[in-house]
């Protein structure tokens, strides 16, 4: 499945990627940021998506602007996470939506491409103390993804 996505640009620190969303609201610059959240017992980076907010420092976290291109934006984020995982094969990337609805949206996106994702990546759903293999139709608190280890 080859879904439409935007071309991402890697920033110099290798922890931020930017891309431009195009839609009825014009061109909106997006930023996908990876921040190290823990090093022990496993390395975990948190991923966030935001709009570059020109009036302030930083970005509007988790912004999915209503620019009519939600799926294309999320597909771009998925591609960026894949790039990051290849760059950091030992690390997990954690994703957690700001709300249950946002988590469900991520879940739908993952479910739609689960077979393809599982070919190269290990994807886990978080339920309390458990991080288990992702299954469709289960509501998770968050998600962990890592490049699959070669057998």
């Amino acid at each position, binding site marked *: 499945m080859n879904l439409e996505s935007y071309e991402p640009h890697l920033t110099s620190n290798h922890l931020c990627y930017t891309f431009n969303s195009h839609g009825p609201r014009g061109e909106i610059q997006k930023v996908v940021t990876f921040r190290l959240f823990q090093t022990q017992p496993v390395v975990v980076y948190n991923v*966030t998506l935001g709009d570059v907010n020109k009036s302030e420092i*930083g970005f509007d976290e988790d912004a999915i602007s209503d620019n009519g291109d939600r799926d294309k934006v999320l597909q771009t984020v998925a591609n960026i996470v894949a790039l990051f995982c290849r760059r950091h094969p030992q690390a997990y990337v954690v994703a957690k939506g700001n709300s249950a609805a946002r988590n469900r949206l991520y879940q739908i996106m993952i479910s739609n491409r689960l077979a393809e994702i599982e070919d190269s990546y290990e994807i886990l759903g978080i339920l309390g103390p458990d*991080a288990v293999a992702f299954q469709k139709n289960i509501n998770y608190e968050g998600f962990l993804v890592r490049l699959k280890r070669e057998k």
Partner: protein
Amino acid sequence: MKTKANPPKKSPSKAIVKKRRKKIYLNDVAWYYADDPADKRKTIEVVEMLKKIDFSILLERDRKAEAQSERGTTLSE
């Protein structure tokens, strides 16, 4: 007599002051910006979620996979 023109000095009021944002650390690496309540909420939520996870199961599985691949390599040699 010619005088050497000095470059105009920037008045202190016009100098660009880059505000350094204060970071609050929740562990040795995870931080949020003190002036960003949304960043604080999200960071605390995710760090708390990660703290609850029992990673020993994942580590054990990795160890087994590694041992298995080493055995496979030895057998094929």
